[in-house]
Structure formats: structure tokens, C-alpha cells
């Protein structure tokens, strides 16, 4: 993350937002626009090479910060990082067995629906996955913003990441099928 050291503050401070998982996305978006409006390389097209280089670094930094905060999982990961919890570390790699079982069940259900060409079934799985993710996310709000239990939050985040991956794959699958239909 130390791509650029010119701002001594974290991404939340950069956009003038409180350091929390629950975030006003519209406030984030308008702060982002306000910052980029002033540091974008377009504003320095006629400036010296050094100024242009700095503008490039600044705008890159602001873009990176924005993307990180805009996506819930990345925002959670970043928050934990700020709190000194590295959720990629091995300490959290051991998943509770019931969760591994759950992952497998999702994958198997998708596989079965796919093999049967069951589009409605896939949609239903997608709906259930969405629900599950939303529930985990609101639990994450509680763990991060209220309980400040960062170790449990890190575990929760890993589960959520796995489910997100399944959800992404499912989305891709559904669209491939949809595209094949449409063509």
C-alpha cells in the first residue's frame, strides 16, 4: 500500500470519512471527484515534467484509495490492515470444518444445476448466495464497527471472500449461458 508517501493519512482520512466499515458511498464518491478534480494529470498538462509525474502519482493514489474503499471486502481488508490484522496470514488459514463443508455444498449445487441446464435453479442458488453474503456482511459491520473484534472479523471476512468467489463464478456461468441463448 505504500505506493506513495505524500499523504501521511489513511484512505479514510484522504476522503474525509470516519474510519469505519459502514460507509456513505455517495459521500465517498463526491470526495473522490473533488480530489481527482484537482490532482488529475489533465489539470497539469502544461506543467513541468516533475509536476506531471507528481500529478500522476497523486491521481493513481486517489484511484487506488477509491477502489479499495468502494468495494466492501477490500474495505474490510484494508480496515483490518490498519488495525494491524493481516487476514492473509496463516493464523486464519485453518477454516472451521463446517465452513469447508458449506463451500463444497454450494459448489456441488451449482455443478448439478449446470449439468441439468437448470437456469431457474442457478438463479435460485444465486438468490440464496446473495442472502447469505448480505447476512455475513451485516455481521461484519457489527464485528468491525461495534464490537471491534478484529480477529473474528478477519475470519468472517475470509468466509465472505470464499462465498464471493463462488458468487463471481456463478455470475460468469449464468452470463455465459445467457449469452449463448442470446446469440
Amino acid at each position, binding site marked *: 500500500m505504500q*505506493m506513495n*508517501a*505524500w*499523504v*501521511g*493519512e489513511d484512505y479514510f482520512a*484522504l*476522503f*474525509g470519512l470516519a474510519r469505519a466499515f459502514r460507509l456513505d*458511498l*455517495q*459521500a*465517498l*464518491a*463526491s*470526495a473522490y*471527484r*473533488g*480530489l*481527482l*478534480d*484537482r*490532482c*488529475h*494529470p*489533465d*489539470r*497539469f*498538462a*502544461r*506543467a*513541468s*515534467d*516533475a*509536476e506531471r*509525474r*507528481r500529478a*500522476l502519482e*497523486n*491521481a*493513481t493514489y486517489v*484511484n*487506488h484509495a*477509491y*477502489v479499495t474503499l*468502494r468495494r466492501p471486502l477490500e474495505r474490510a481488508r484494508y480496515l483490518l490492515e490498519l488495525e494491524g490484522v493481516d487476514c492473509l496470514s496463516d493464523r486464519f488459514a485453518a477454516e472451521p470444518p463446517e465452513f469447508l463443508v458449506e463451500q463444497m455444498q454450494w459448489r456441488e449445487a451449482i455443478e448439478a444445476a449446470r449439468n441439468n441446464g437448470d437456469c431457474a435453479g442457478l438463479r435460485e442458488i444465486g438468490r440464496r448466495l446473495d442472502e447469505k453474503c448480505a447476512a455475513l456482511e451485516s455481521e461484519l459491520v457489527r464485528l468491525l464497527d461495534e464490537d471491534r473484534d478484529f480477529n473474528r472479523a478477519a475470519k468472517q471476512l475470509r468466509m465472505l471472500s470464499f462465498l464471493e468467489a463462488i458468487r463471481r463464478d456463478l455470475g460468469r456461468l449464468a*452470463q455465459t449461458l445467457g*449469452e449463448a441463448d*442470446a*446469440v
Partner: protein
Amino acid sequence: MLFEIREPGGVAPSGERRRAVGIDLGTTYSLVATVDPDGKGRVLTDEEGRWLLPSVVRYQPEHTAVGWDAWGKRSEDPANTIVSVKRFVGRGRADLPAAAERTYRLAEGGGMVRFKTCAGIKSPVEVSAGILSVLRARAERELGGDLEGAVITVPAYFDESQREATRDAARLAGINVLRLLSEPTAAAVAYGLDRGSEGLYAVYDLGGGTFDISILRLSRGVFEVIATNGHTMLGGDDFDQRIADWLATKAGLAHADVGPVDAGILLDAARTAKEKLSSEDQVAVRTALSEGRMVEARLTRAEFEHITADLVEQTLIPVRRALRDANLSPGSLDGVVLVGGATRMPRIRRAVARLFGREPLTDIDPDKAVALGAAIQAEMLIGNRSDSLLLLDVIPLSLGLETMGGLAEKLILRNSTIPVAQTQEFTTFKDGQSAISIHVVQGERELVADCRSLARFELRGIPPMPAGAARVRVTFQVDADGLLSVTAREQHSGVEAAISVKPSYGLTDDEIGEMLRSSLLHAREDVEARALVEARVEGERMLIALERAIGPGGVGFIDETEKSTVNRLASALRRLLGEGDARRIRQATEALNRATESLAARMMTTAVREVLQDASKFPSAWAEGKG
């Protein structure tokens, strides 16, 4: 350098109005536009009042013709008359369709294909530069003086090699490139500013040889591209080719019987027929081939639409993909804009209207929108335009590295807003390994073999370490033009290597230099004198910025020790500016730059706070996407 915060909406500096243009370097036609002092966009014309310039260059031993003159000879002298050069830019011979080999004498050349002409071997970059030089001359004649710079548009779906090659062509034509801008984004600017539009818009851009779809969010002068997709080998030319093939079949000619000259004649007839069919239900084609043989046929619009239906359908696939990437349904858009001459075909309009469930917008001439939008951005970049306009473009294809087993590891994902950077750490896999080879690729596929190879370079001089101990950080930086540079640094030893992607398909700087020297397009320049001027300008700017920051009336932020160091370096620089050594001026500027780095950082932090206070003035209208 000190970070200078500009006031958006600030007035352009007084003095002479600077000359800047937008250039649409198209597959079949190119054009140049400007914004007049009254704020109105205008496409510039040649001395005969024509605003389109055919993107055609004809080489003869003593003379090179560009535009209409060359256009007139393309059937007569096809091998020396390069049409649709944009399809060859940044491409290797293997990338090209077989038809290209039938028309031209092609040669390999450092990755990018070359044309063998009677005036020698020409690269697509040189051919493009020929077109750009004519546009530059036109602009300078119309605007009455030297151009300060130009915004040049490229298809949104152009990859790194093609963008690099386009920028090289502009350099070769003596044009200062202010920015490479995506064509659909340029069109959106022309539309958005014209109509004061807000919301989600799709731009469907079918040009002569390329197809782009971009989805943008427009809000208060901010044009944010959310997703883009396209096809760099699909355009109006393909529709012409279909009609030409149909005519050949009707005339009982096999593919092999049609020589390059007849192929050109048939294409001309096809193009005329296609254009007529946009307003008529049927057209009678009657044309004479080179040996006097007549080709006669009647083509109805229904038949035309039948033989090109799959081409229309091919454009809808990228549209659906872009919508999916943007996480939007077709019906959720606030408008769809049609750009590119090929969108005049009624069949295209119907297909787009059906997919999006709304009539597309066509009130700006689809041939002019891109150049006009580019001209607006050029005005802003050059400082003539006082309102703030912010274009946030994306990279169209993911950028990555080759990892073990020939897999492509993506570092920057497609549709990332530029500028963007990403860093990843790699390590050695053998004890004592002293070099690491870095292969930069672009594309969405998993296997390197299926992606486009952009560049290879090596990081050497890693000190001996056990396998896995070295830590090589590879950083990808994509700038606001969408151009990539890659650096690799071993963290323990500090060994570093960098490359700005001069792709395998591009030209080396030496080649460009050689072309510049040998080219008649460009006057020979005194390189050293230029370097000195540039170094002085840079040094002076540095001193001015410093004065503004710490001089009387400056903003402060500096303690006495820091101030004395900075002042010492500043006076050294001032002294050197009076002498004639570019290298020493650069060194002194760089030293001062380093000494003021932390000062600049503190100023930035303060500036950020000010922005945030301002940001509260923008209420929630800048809606968040679903992405």
C-alpha cells in the same frame, strides 16, 4: 516538485490564445476539429472546403500523396496505396486477415508488419504519420500558426501496442500529443456538453474498421467510463467487403480470380451501394472491371441486411459484455449515442434500439462527434477553457505477467480507472539465481499464449541468495493516456530495471529516431539545443513554484534548517540556468526537487483538507454505481 493545486473553474492565463486541436485518426477518414473563441466546436476543412480526409497514403518514388489524391488512385495502384492503415497499426503479420496479403506486399519488421512500396519499406506508424502531418498542416493554416498540441483519439479497445504506435505516429508528424483519448469518451464529451446530459449513457461507435462500446456515467462535468468493450477488426469496411464478395459471386468470379485492382473496383462499387442503401430500398450496381468486363447486379436492402446480419450481431456481443461488466441491464441507461459513419445503416439503428429499448441519439453528425469531443478536451488541457471537465477513462484489457507454467497473472484488471498502478512481489526459484525474466502481457485469457505479448525484459544483478529469498517487486503503472510502464526492483539489494512498454509490436526509440532523421515530414532539429531549452524551462518552473510556496506571501510549512538547504540548492540552480549545460541544470533541478519532497507532501495534506471542506458542497448527486 511542489504540488500545485489549481482552482477548477479558474480563468485561463491571459495572453495569446493557444492553438490546440482534436484529431480523429480514423480507419477510412480522418478529421481535425477545434473550438473557436466563442466556445463553438468546428471541424476544419481543406482549401476546397472538404472536412473529411481519406486515411489513404500513396507512395511513389518521388512523391507521397495523402488524402483525396491518393484515394483516387487506390484502384489503379493498390500495392502502393495504403488504405485503412489503422488496421495494421501495432499489429504483426500473423494478426492480419488474408485479404491484406492479397492487396499489399507485406514484410515483417520488428514485430510490426511493414509495407513494401515503390518508395521503400514503410511501417504503419509512418503511414499514419503521413495522414497526421496533413491534418497538422491543415490546422496550422486554418488557425494561423503553430499548434501547441493535439488530443488524438484511439478506439477504446486499442491495446498497449496500438496506443504506443499511435503516439509514435503523432511524434513522427511533429505533433505534441496532449492526450490519447478513447473515441467513445470523446463522443460522449461532445454530446454531454452539448445537451447538458446527466446519468448513464452508452456510446456505440462503429467506425470504418473498429467497433467500440463504452458505458459512461455523466455527472457535473465528470465523464466516468464504467466499462468498455469492442472489436478492433470490425467496422464499416467489413460490410463493404461483404457486398464486394456478393458482387463477385454474382459476376461468376471466384476469389482467386479477383486481382488487387478488381478487388478495389468492386469495393468502390460496394461502398457506394452501401451508402445508397441507407436511404433507398434497392440499388442497381454497374461497374467495369479492369479488363472491360461489366459487373451488373441489383441489391435490395433486405438482401444486404441478410448478408451482413452476422456482422451486426458480432457488435452486440461486446455490448452485452460491457453491460455485464458494468452490472447494468440494457433498460437502465438514460441514453444511447451512435457514433461512426457505419451507424447510418438502418439495420444498425434498429438493432441498437431493440437491445436498449430506446431510440438512439444521433443529433450530432456521427462522423464529427469524436473529433469535436477531442477538440474540447484539447482546449481544456491547453488552458483555454475555464470550466472544469474531468474525463475518467479505463483500460480496456487486463495487464499482467507471465508466471510459472505459462500462466498469465493479472495485475491490473480491465475497466480499471486510469491512472492506475499495482505492485506484486515475486521471488527466485533457484539457489543463486541472479536474474529474473519479466514478460508483460495483455488480455483476459489465462494462458500467456492466448494473450498479447507486450514486452520482455530482465532484472539482472540479483546477489546470490537461496531460492525464494529474493523479493522482486514488480510495479505496473498505467498513465492517463493508457500507456504502461513497468519497473522491477529487488528489495534486499535495490537492483532495479524498468521498461516503458515499447512492445514487441511497436517501434524502438532508435527506429523512431531514425525515421525522424530520414523523414521529409519533419525538419531536422538540434537535439542538444532543445534539451537545454527544456532543462531551463523545467528549472525555472521549479523556482517559481518554490517562490510561491516559501517566498513572501507563501503558505509557510517550512522550518529554518530546511529553508536554508532549499535556498542553497535554489541559488545553485539559478546560477546554472545562466550557463549552457543541460545535464547540470537537470541535476540541480532534481536535487531541489528531492529536497522539497516532504514540503510538497505537507502542502498536499493541507490541500486535501481544503478539498474535503469543499467536497461537502457537492451533494449526493454523484450517484454510486452498483459495481
